[in-house]
């Protein structure tokens, strides 16, 4: 397991405007944010609040209109293997087997074949997909696909895991299982995780810190540190109090100005 010593994210005065048709939509107002290495941060907010845009800017898929993002004090210039994105719809390479998908990053680094295979096997094992290692993505369930997607970025030594509603398309049981596995993996690797969700429950279960965003233009409305002990007991009164608090903050920020769904227009 690679020991991650990096993964500091600094978002400095970032804003984003999209041109849609003749108009301009302010997706993100000015955002300043620092995420320290190893932190599990959840971004929650209603659709259109710019949380996915924020994530895509950190990933380097979108350029901010103003401001900059620094990772370990260096400004980013585009997508990079230090930041691994896990998409809601998996985005696995359908022509590659599970093992080949996981080995894709190491292959890009032109490691010797033996080493690529060794890394692939290691991360296939990490997400428990030994028996499906030679299957193609279309032969996998949603939960298995998302495991591959997570293993794929970890195999590439990503210090920062960017997750865009990764469990949104899964059934409740699989979601719960994957949440547990993600926490385990995070505990072992200590990567930084920025996790976009619209589920208050999910944020309360996973995060060290929750950023509640609101729309028009997107901004961070609350920044809450959760000091619930782990593993978290979803039936405890403390957990419920946190969940209620998050839900209250989320709904109180719901603005009527959601006519232009910037998020859906971009994603």
């Amino acid at each position, binding site marked *: 397991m690679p020991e991650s010593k990096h993964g500091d994210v600094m978002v400095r005065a970032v804003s984003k405007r999209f041109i849609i048709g003749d108009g301009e939509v302010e997706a993100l107002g000015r955002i300043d944010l620092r995420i320290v290495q190893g932190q599990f941060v959840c971004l929650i907010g209603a659709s259109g609040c710019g949380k996915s845009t924020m994530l895509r800017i950190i990933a380097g898929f979108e350029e901010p209109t103003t401001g900059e993002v620094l990772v370990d004090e260096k400004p980013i210039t585009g997508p990079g*293997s230090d930041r*691994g994105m896990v*998409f809601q719809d998996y*985005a696995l*390479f359908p022509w*590659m087997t599970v093992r080949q998908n996981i080995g*894709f*990053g190491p292959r890009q680094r032109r490691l010797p074949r033996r080493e690529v295979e060794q890394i692939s096997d290691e991360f296939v094992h990490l997400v428990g997909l030994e028996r499906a290692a030679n299957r193609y993505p279309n032969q996998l369930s949603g939960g298995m696909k998302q495991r591959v997607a997570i293993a794929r*970025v970890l195999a*590439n030594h990503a210090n920062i895991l960017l997750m865009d509603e990764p469990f949104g398309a899964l059934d409740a049981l699989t979601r719960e299982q994957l949440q547990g596995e993600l926490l385990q993996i995070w505990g072992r690797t200590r990567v930084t995780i920025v996790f976009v969700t619209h589920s208050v429950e999910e944020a309360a279960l996973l995060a060290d810190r929750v950023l509640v965003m609101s729309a028009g233009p997107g901004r961070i409305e609350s920044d809450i540190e959760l000091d619930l002990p782990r593993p978290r007991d979803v039936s405890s009164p403390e957990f419920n109090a946190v969940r209620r608090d998050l839900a209250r903050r989320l709904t109180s920020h719901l603005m009527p100005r959601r006519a232009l769904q910037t998020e859906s227009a971009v994603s």
Partner: protein
Amino acid sequence: MSEQVTAFPETSQPALADAPVAARQRRRTFARLRATALGAGFPLLLVLLWDRAVAITGTRLIPSPWEVAVMMYDFSFGGIYDDAFSGTILTHIWKSMTRVYGGFFLAAVIAIPLGLMIGRLKILRQLLDPTINLLRPIPVTAWLPLSMIFFGLGPNAAIFLVFLGAFYPILLNTMFGVRSVDVRLFEAAAMLGCSGSAMFRQVVLPASLPAIFNGLRIAHGFAWILIVVGEMTGVPTGLGSVVMDGRTLSRTDLVITGMIVIGVCGFLTDRVIVLVSNRVLQWSPQHHA
């Protein structure tokens, strides 16, 4: 299981209930046999209609299937007419194949990389797209005079015509294939450290392969269609030239023989392409033809 069993009454039911695997296998064999019987039966029916039509009308312009069969035998093995065409089938097939596949592979080698680049690079698309759409509607036959000036009499003109016919389906399907790849795959590849020409080789090309194979299959059909036109350019051998010779000599049996051989060659080679594409695209759920 039982309602599937009743679908074919000629097999004994108790045995099937005991061995559902065997039943399923037998069912599959039966379905395959039926497909073959239906697929082969229809052309036989057409031959029968042809035979009857010739007999009833008493025409002398169209030979009967039997006369064509005799011609086919002579064309294949000789020993009946002993003329210039007797026993020459392999030479003609071989010559035609060199032209069909010369043009086809040349088209693929140029159209696939070009299509990948046009699909991916906006500036190239803006530069070339109008020209492509302007040249595309021009019938290949219209190029015949020019191709004879460019390449003279002989096989090169034929290869050029086949190339032209095969080029556009491959190019357009490749462009379409690239354009319809989920952008997330490019993003995923970029974040995993893939860029530049590696992106073309490792992501753009494989992601577009289903569309490229569709293009290849269509183009391959065109390549065989164009062999007659291609071999109008004054080449002495080839299936197209056999058909043209038959026309000049008013030998309809030869013309039909040539037509059938072209059809069979096109059919068999198309099966090869389907086999290859099913093998290469076994990862793609929507492709299996």
